[in-house]
């Protein structure tokens, strides 16, 4: 059996197939095909025709040497150089054996065993190399598949990234558009809120128009009456002075002068009273400056108590209610203004107006039920308490059931009939007190009474 021919056939077949020579390298495909089929023919001849044994062996050597040559020289088969390392010892030893036998048969017999042993090792070497190469090839194949898979994954990821980027760009565009729309809506809402606040203020002011008119009318009446009186008294005094000294009534003169002085003070007092009411009204209708000012909280409470009373009265002539104010003297402004506290007066005024108008509304509703012995009463109380001021507004009206009490500070919540309440009064009051770092709370006994308590820091 000629192993070299078998090896040449196997290597030729392997190279022809592995390097896709038919498609990529047709020239080498043809050469390797000649070796492959030539090798088969020679092998058949080697087996069947005894005379050809020597010829086929040398042709086998030639084929193998040629294969070693092309494996060593041709770049096409660079990747198959490990085959060269595997087969080279066997091919060379086999050639050496035949050459030795041809040149010196005597010497050959001496070396034959040694060469056969070496040939045996070269076959083992060839198999080991075959196994190692095969293993490496498999690992390389595995690595190649892995790399290919990774590349595919990378391409997939890149493609997904691209797609994602497109989606992100589209989404960003949508979000930006939505953001702009939301900002626009927010601006509109802020504007609507400001309009609502203003509308609520003007509504509460509108309800009080008659009350305000009454409050201004009263001091103006005093101004008119006292100034008319002064004119009359001055004429009387002039007449008295014109009398001869002996007929003059000094006591009357002094009395008239004292009254004139007192009346002037009263004119001044009532003028200021009207002035304060007009200023408060203007402050109430104007947008709040948000600036805290030193304010006489007792005077503010008193003023809004009267305004709320007359406002309710103006809407319903049959309405009447008792009023009681208990003011902490330490909160009176005093001559040096030491009793004043720092608040935004028009804002706190609005809170007081809301609470007091609600209180008068409540007692009036209860009064309409004509309960025997019922005396409507609204009270306002101030108290200094450490670094805080407490303001309590209470009424003996219908009270607030617990389920409603939880909702009264929510915007647009109202129990009043349509058109009588905006539902914003207490909600805005809550916001105003919060903005003052204060607290507002409500306690109520349904059917009996309600008390709102405001706690404001004094500074």
């Amino acid at each position, binding site marked *: 059996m000629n192993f070299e021919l078998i090896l040449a056939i196997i290597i030729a077949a392997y190279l022809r197939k592995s390097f896709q020579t038919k498609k990529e390298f047709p020239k080498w495909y043809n050469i390797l095909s000649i070796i492959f089929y030539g090798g088969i023919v020679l092998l058949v001849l080697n087996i069947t025709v005894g005379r050809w044994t020597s010829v086929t062996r040398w042709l086998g050597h030639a084929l193998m040497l040629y294969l070693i040559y092309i494996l060593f020289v041709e770049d096409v088969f660079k990747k198959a150089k490990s085959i060269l390392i595997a087969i080279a010892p066997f091919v060379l030893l086999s050639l050496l054996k035949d050459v030795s036998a041809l040149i010196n048969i005597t010497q050959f017999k001496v070396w034959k065993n040694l060469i056969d042993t070496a040939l045996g090792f070269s076959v083992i070497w060839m198999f080991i190399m075959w196994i190692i190469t095969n293993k490496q090839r498999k690992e390389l194949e595995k690595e190649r598949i892995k790399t290919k898979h990774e590349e595919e994954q990378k391409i997939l990821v890149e493609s997904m990234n691209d797609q994602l980027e497109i989606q992100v760009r589209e989404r960003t565009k949508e979000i930006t558009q939505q953001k702009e729309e939301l900002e626009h809506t927010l601006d509109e809402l802020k504007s609507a809120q400001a309009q609502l606040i203003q509308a609520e203020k003007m509504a509460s002011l509108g309800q009080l128009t008659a009350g305000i008119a*009454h409050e201004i*009318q009263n001091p103006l*009446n005093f101004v008119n*009456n006292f100034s008319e009186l002064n004119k009359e008294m001055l004429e009387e005094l002039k007449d008295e002075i014109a009398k001869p000294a002996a007929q003059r009534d000094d006591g009357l003169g002094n009395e008239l002068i004292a009254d004139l002085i007192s009346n002037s003070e009263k004119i001044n007092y009532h003028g200021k009273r009207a002035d304060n009411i007009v200023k408060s009204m203007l402050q109430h209708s104007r947008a709040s400056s948000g600036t805290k000012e030193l304010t006489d909280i007792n005077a503010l409470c008193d003023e809004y108590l009267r305004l709320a009373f007359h406002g309710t009265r103006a809407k319903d*002539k049959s309405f009447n209610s*008792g009023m009681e104010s208990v003011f902490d003297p330490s909160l009176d402004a005093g001559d040096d203004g030491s009793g004043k506290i720092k608040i935004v007066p028009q804002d706190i005024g609005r809170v007081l107006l809301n609470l007091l108008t609600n209180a008068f509304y409540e007692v009036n509703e209860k009064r309409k039920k004509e309960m025997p012995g019922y005396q409507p009463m609204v009270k306002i109380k101030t108290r200094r308490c450490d670094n805080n001021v407490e303001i309590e507004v209470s009424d003996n009206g219908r009270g607030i059931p617990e389920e409603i009490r939880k909702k009264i500070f929510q915007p647009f919540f109202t129990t009043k009939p349509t058109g009588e309440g905006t539902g914003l009064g207490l909600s805005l009051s809550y916001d105003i007190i919060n903005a003052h770092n204060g607290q507002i709370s409500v306690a109520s006994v349904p059917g009996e009474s309600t008390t709102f308590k405001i706690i404001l820091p004094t500074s």
Partner: protein
Amino acid sequence: MKVLVVDDEHDVRLLFEQKFRKEIKSGEMNFSFAYSGQEALDYLRKSDQGAVLILSDINMPGMSGLELLKKIREESPAPPPMVMMITAYGDQQNRDSAKQLGADDFLTKPVDFNELKTKLKSVV
């Protein structure tokens, strides 16, 4: 003539005392003052404090002038006093209510004291 003035504004007293200085000094008129409806009612219920004429504001906290008028007419002290209503609200509804409840006259603020003086003197 005993006159009871009912008004929650305390300065009204000064106006009457100065405007009717001569009448008060001469004893022609005697003014008393009440600052709420209830106070006026309490005053009138004392038999020796009877007033011939009552001048009452309508718009007062607690008992209003109209409620006071109603109670005065219900309790009918003898002889029934003359009642003049004074208010800042000069509307017809108040006038009608006051008339229905038995008011003898109706004045609108600001009160013309010369006119009032003439009216009071005519009563005297």
